[in-house]
């Protein structure tokens, strides 16, 4: 008996050779671009136990807050910083179009200060972020040790040791982290209707509110010190489960 799956495998499309003129012209256009391995955008952060090293400053790809401080409120500071970044040549911030206003994803106190994470999208689908980790209230974006920002780039690829994945969606950002600041979690719900994020794992059973603007959530979860991973379940305002995501704390 032929199964539906068998039928579907028989329907597999055969790749067709590209149209010669288009193929030749497009290849020439691409090769005319300077691959510039020394200056092109590079992976600009790695998982790390050290917060200050969370972003890898690759040339001009990750900037510090120097010129960004002292310009209005935190959202304006973040926006100015990201705009500066986007205008810096040969960075992952180039070509993203118009930057939308940054939105606060999460802000919470950790063992060593206040962690703040902002996200901003752009008119061309770019994803930018800024994070602050300082002893103040998290809005000062004090100095380069506590403030990092960037756009696009590549994420640590969970499936390939040393590999990376392109950052294209805001809900790719975040995770469950256990480092010198103690266990913490933050992220952005992939479900627009979600209002609560239920965090469960060994030692932790907590419901976090989801912001209505950024759909962000986050908090320190010291009770999860024994957890290797946690599951976040997204609920709508009627308590219905919309989906879930499992975060595994990075090792090393």
């Amino acid at each position: 008996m032929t199964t539906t799956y068998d039928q579907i495998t028989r329907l597999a499309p055969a790749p067709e050779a590209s149209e010669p003129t288009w193929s030749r012209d497009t290849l020439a256009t691409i090769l005319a671009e300077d691959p510039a391995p020394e200056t092109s955008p590079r992976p600009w952060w790695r998982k790390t136990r050290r917060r200050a090293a969370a972003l890898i400053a690759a040339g001009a790809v990750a900037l510090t807050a120097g010129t960004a401080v002292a310009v209005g409120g935190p959202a304006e500071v973040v926006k100015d910083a990201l705009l500066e970044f986007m205008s810096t040549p040969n960075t992952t911030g180039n070509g993203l179009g118009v930057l939308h206003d940054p939105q606060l994803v999460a802000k919470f106190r950790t063992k060593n200060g206040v962690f703040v994470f902002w996200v901003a999208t752009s008119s061309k689908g770019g994803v930018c972020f800024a994070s602050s980790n300082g002893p103040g209230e998290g809005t000062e974006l004090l100095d380069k040790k506590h403030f990092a920002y960037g756009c696009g780039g590549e994420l640590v690829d969970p499936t390939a040791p040393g590999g990376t994945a392109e950052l294209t969606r805001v809900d790719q950002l975040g995770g469950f982290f256990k480092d010198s600041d103690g266990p913490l979690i933050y992220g952005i719900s992939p479900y627009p209707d979600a209002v609560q994020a239920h965090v469960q794992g060994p030692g932790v059973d907590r419901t976090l509110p989801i912001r209505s603007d950024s759909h962000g959530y986050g908090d320190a979860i010291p009770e999860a010190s024994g957890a290797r991973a946690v599951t976040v379940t997204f609920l709508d305002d009627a308590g219905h489960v919309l989906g879930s995501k499992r975060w595994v704390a990075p090792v090393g």
Partner: protein
Amino acid sequence: MSTTEGTAEFTRSWERDAPRVAVYARRHVATDDVHDVVAETFLHAWRRWDVVPQPPIAWLVGTARNVIANHLRAKGRRSALYERLVLLDAVALSAADAGLLATDRMAALERLAALPEEQREALLLVAWDGLTPDQAATVLGIRTGTLRVRTHRARKALESAGSNESFGPMTVEVLNEGGIR
């Protein structure tokens, strides 16, 4: 790798892999947009060619997936069931070439279109795009085991003929996909 070697290798990949990336794109976007997706995917590859894993097909399809996601996001919508069916119908082999009755072909495609996206993607990356489970998992940013679960569920759902079952929320296994602190 010298620039000359890199260029030659990239050119070979373009000739060999662009048609496969196009096939992938054709089931997600309108025909008019397929060339744009392929070109943008390979432009990303060229800019990072020194770090693109070899063979590059999984990386290319994964990047195409992101390019398409951006494309759909820019249009502010996700494809509806009917639109998915139209795209699948356009890209799948004809009934004659596949040795199927036209009615069986359309019924199979309808069931395929009705699958949850993550199950359909997992299934087709292997069944249509010819990727290994490891490669398909890389494309989707999930573990190979998770991919196998998704394909298993997809096959099970496909065989539930005439089923009106709804598909519940799925658990997505992510190892700190963001990885950013």
